[in-house]
């Protein structure tokens, strides 16, 4: 704006341009209070959203691991020549729930280590992430007796399992056993292994958000009876 333009300004405009009054302290205080209220409510929404995000992520991972672990068990059991107790020789008693089993994998099995007869032990231990939950491990060896669950080299597949006492495996008999949640082996059928891996981040007592993955896996190399 040149000096000529400035000369043309009206008196009122010049007065306003020269005015130096700002906000009063009252106005400022009111504005700050309103801003604080809005920010506080926004922050609480953000905090709860981030909590939800963490929870959803953990739940997603637990369920994903559950499905992956189940796939691995299925591959092991479908190819197994024997499913026994953890010594690798004693057969499972029908209608009894077990915390650990040993799967004998012949050398041609895709899950056998380095094309040798492999003894894979699946077992549960108390979860380190949630005291009331259980975690499922797999440990493999090519010699008998098979290593136990606590051995280093055991791989954790599933966590946050809520099965009572971690007894996730059960061989159903021809009568409905309570240990296998009432699952019964039909006559003229291959032996089935009932595997229950329900997961819940908040422990067995929680009824919300549980994911109950349960299946009966056929021992395909067994005899139909």
């Amino acid at each position, binding site marked *: 704006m040149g000096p000529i333009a400035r000369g*043309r300004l009206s008196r009122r405009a010049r007065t306003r341009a020269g005015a130096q009054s700002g906000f009063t302290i009252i106005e400022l205080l009111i504005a700050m209070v309103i801003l604080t209220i809005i920010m506080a409510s926004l922050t609480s929404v953000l905090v709860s959203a981030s909590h939800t995000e963490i929870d959803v992520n953990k739940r997603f991972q637990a369920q994903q691991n559950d499905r992956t672990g189940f796939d691995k068990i299925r591959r092991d059991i479908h190819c197994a020549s024997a499913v026994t107790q953890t010594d690798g020789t004693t057969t499972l008693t029908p209608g009894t729930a077990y915390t650990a089993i040993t799967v004998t994998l012949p050398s041609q099995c895709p899950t056998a280590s380095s094309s040798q007869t492999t003894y894979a032990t699946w077992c549960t231990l108390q979860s380190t992430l949630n005291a009331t939950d259980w975690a499922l491990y797999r440990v493999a060896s090519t010699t008998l007796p098979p290593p136990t669950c606590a051995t280093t080299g055991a791989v954790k597949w599933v966590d946050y399992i809520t099965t009572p006492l971690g007894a996730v495996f059960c061989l159903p008999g021809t009568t409905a056993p309570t240990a296998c949640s009432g699952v*019964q082996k*039909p006559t*003229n059928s*291959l032996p089935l292994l009932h595997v229950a891996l329900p997961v819940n981040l908040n422990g067995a007592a929680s009824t919300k958000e549980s994911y109950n*993955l*349960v299946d009966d896996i*056929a021992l395909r190399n067994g005899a*139909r009876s």
Partner: protein
Amino acid sequence: MRIPPRLARLREEDGFTLIELTIVMAVLTIGILSLVAAYSSGYVAMKHATRVSSAQLLADSQMERFRALQYTSIALNTSCGATCSQDATYTADTAYSSTAQVTGCATQDQTCLSTQIKSGPDTNSYRIDTYITWSCLSGTYSAGSCGSSNPIPVKLVTVVVRQSGTTAVLVRQQSTFTSATGS
């Protein structure tokens, strides 16, 4: 005195009219509503995906039971009263055949039931319909045969998983079983 238009605008004290404001609010509302609609359709799609994957697990599990069975034992149980009844939803399915149905499962096993209600991994309730019919790889099935010079009939097992209480099909699985594979 002439005031330049730039300064004149500074001195104006007019705001928006009510009409303008209303139009802006209406446009904004439409925009926000379309965003909300996108969210809710995403939620519906996610829920459906969860149901389908749960239904898939149940169907796999049911089929696995039949794979474990002896060929001669693959049959439906249709003579156990109300538990074995086949309702309108069951018979309306394309896999249903009143004439070629394989029946005679003797055990009271759940696998043999035409319709089972089971709870899936997501704790929702699902309806599992199992159809077992005689089928021919070539020729037409009639009275235990596919016609001369045709292969022997096979058992066709169809597992249909529906959302409990509706007829909406979530998963359909089919497999044939032949006596040639041994028992």
